[in-house]
């Protein structure tokens, strides 16, 4: 066979497969974005019943956003924001302490400790909901005071999620620590002066995920708030809008709320995307 011809054949094949890929990618992008585009459109729809068979509103308006402002949504948003901020700080500190220690130190209890936490993680967290609720209730941290309660429980148990950042710390060469130790640095100085600057991606990744987590926190938050609107977070509150007896009057407001919740989180995420990707690929897989 003529070599030239074979080469040409490969080229057209390649071009054809690239065209197929482009078509697939466009379809994928449309499928993945469409629901979110729908939400945005419906958030501007003035006719508020949910059972309509169209996406583009017949009547545009800001009515849903005004409804949102007049509802308890403000309170829920503030609650969630406080929880997210607090856990962004505290969860990050706890998880980094945990993962750094388990990655860098070799002490007698390290192996048993990690095995113990692995086994602990096999119990479904849902199981402990009842008792945690009762403990929080005893402390007076339920219903309207749910916010500090949720922060407490979320932060206290966050040490279990050390895997991703430990995986990242494992990739930083140990020879760096050893060199610094030889030069007389204490363990604390090694962490503070050498590891932390190198670990910037994972620190930002942890802050980001810790901040984003509470926005979707649902089951336990609902259990702790126990029907008191003042203690809801956005997920719990907006879930109550989509129950069968509420959905007809609140559906479009739900869409508007979705936009308001998703917008800042998404923008933040897009800005820090680079670190997220580094964290995920560096740490999540190695585990």
């Amino acid at each position, binding site marked *: 066979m003529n070599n030239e011809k074979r080469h040409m054949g490969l080229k057209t094949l*390649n071009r054809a497969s*690239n065209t197929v*890929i*482009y078509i697939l*990618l466009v379809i*994928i*992008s449309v*499928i*993945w*974005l469409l629901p*979110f585009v*729908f*939400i945005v459109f419906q958030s501007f729809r003035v006719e508020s019943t949910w*059972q309509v*068979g*169209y*996406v583009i509103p017949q009547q545009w308006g800001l009515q849903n956003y005004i409804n949102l402002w007049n509802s308890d949504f403000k309170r829920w948003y503030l609650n969630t924001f406080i929880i997210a901020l607090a856990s962004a700080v505290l969860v990050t500190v*706890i998880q980094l*302490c945990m993962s*750094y*220690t388990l990655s860098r*130190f070799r002490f007698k209890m390290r192996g048993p400790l990690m095995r113990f936490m692995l*086994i602990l993680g*096999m*119990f*479904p967290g*849902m*199981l*402990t909901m*009842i*008792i945690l609720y*009762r403990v929080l209730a005893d402390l007076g941290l339920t219903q309207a005071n749910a916010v500090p309660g949720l922060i407490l429980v979320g932060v*206290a*148990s*966050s040490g*279990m999620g050390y895997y991703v950042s430990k995986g990242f710390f494992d990739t930083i060469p140990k020879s760096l620590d050893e060199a610094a130790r030889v030069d007389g640095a204490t*363990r604390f100085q090694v*962490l503070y002066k050498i590891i932390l600057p190198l670990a910037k991606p994972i620190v930002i990744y942890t802050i980001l995920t810790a901040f*984003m987590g509470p*926005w*979707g926190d649902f*089951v336990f938050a609902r259990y702790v708030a126990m029907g008191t609107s003042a203690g809801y977070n*956005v*997920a719990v509150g*907006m*879930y109550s809008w989509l129950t069968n007896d509420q*959905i007809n009057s609140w*559906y479009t407001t739900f869409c508007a709320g*979705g936009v308001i*919740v*998703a917008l800042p989180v*998404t923008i933040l*995420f*897009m800005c820090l995307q680079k670190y*997220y*990707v580094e964290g*995920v*690929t560096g740490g999540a*897989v190695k*585990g």
Partner: protein
Amino acid sequence: MKRYSDMEYLRLSKWNKFVYKLVSFLVSIPLGIGHFFVKIWKGIKEFGGKVAAECKDIWTTFVTGDWKTKLSFLVMGFGNLAHGQILRGVMFLLFEVVFIFYMVTTGGYWLSKLDNLGDKGPESVYNAVLDTNTTVFNDNSFKILLYGVLTIFFIIAFIYTWRANVKQNKLINQILKSGKKLKSGKDDLKSLVDDQFHKTLLALPMVGILVFTVMPIVFMVLVAFTNYDGSHNGYSNALFTWVGLKNFGTMFSWTANTSAGLQSYSATFGEILTWTLIWAFFATFTNYFLGMCVAMMINKKGIHLKKMWRTILVMTVAIPQFISLMYVSKMFAQNGLLNQMLMNHGWIKQPLPFWTDPTWARITVIIINIWVGIPYLMLITTGILMNIPADLYESAKIDGANAWQQYRKITLPYMLFITGPYLLTSFTGNMNNFNVIYLLTGGAPTNAAASGAAGSVGYTDLLITWLFKITTGGESLYYLASVVGIMVFVVVALISLVVYNVLPSIKNEEDFQ
């Protein structure tokens, strides 16, 4: 089973190789489980030996020690104080005082009630002032169990500290004998940011885990052996007490309540477990392979705008899941957007039964889960795919391998090796994927024969959503929820155990660094 050597194995036909692998895998499961129990037995023996050695050590420390050592068996930290280690001594002594104070004031009370979780329930008593009967609350089973467990934790901590205190005396004697100087309190504090830095770092996280994870789990596991439920809440209606293994008997009995049209708990458990495993399998592997496909398409040479395609997908990771899940759930509803649009266009006459037909609902959740999961998998796999050495592909091309062969022989093995641990955690994570199921279907459509005192059960319910429904719905059979939770643990542990013994890349942590 006949074991083949490597050479013999290579000579087998493809089909025989497959059968051989399959059989050896199946054989490895009972072997693995057997191995596990052998390990546990060995562990117990080892533990017994250690305890004996400790006791012996304590005895020799006591016999050979001077009066200071002997006194510090009773007054913790005395040895340290007597030798000028004020900080350590005071800490030990303080702990002992707090412990004794706690045990005398409250701990002893909770401990004494722990045997049957309270004797006297609420009762109606005549109140002369009000001239009517009022309810008087007496024991509180819930608190007895909770504080009983806490007290036992505290006692264990005390024994451990007491042992450390004894060790201190031995250490002091050794150091003094060798003529070195004892560490001062200042040295101790300094070492907390240096040699003992790990203790400083771990202190806070471990306290959190102990109080808010370990203690609740111990408590809830114990609940499985009581009759704690909505009508025995341990306080305002009736006390609950120990019932032994009765609840496990209930869960695994095959007697159905035919008059009420209900099936047995075993049947329900079996059904839900089967679906949970099917769901976890499909949710994990569809996402994994499709996510890898998307990543490879974007990574392919000659595809432009790589960043844009990635950004579009990554954006959907950022949007809180409850928004997208609840929205999509309503979109697929009987009278939701999708059905309405299809009917308006005249493509269908009846709404499609996305959430009302069991099979439709199960397939729909799996498909929507693909929509949820692919961006994340795309992100993970992109990084790994780019790390595969390019010369592997170059030499494969020279040998005339086509794209499929390259994928089968290079990409896939590499990916599976690197992501093995991730696949395992993602499988067990999906088994407990509460949010996706609960927000999409809430477990619907309802399985009438399985619903009853344990709350309403649906065809898409996982064990974890069932656990939640038992807790919050029906007659609040907390003890049954606890049994389900323990079973989830058992299933996850078994799967992990088997996978750990089969997968090479998890076994050795240090290899990976």
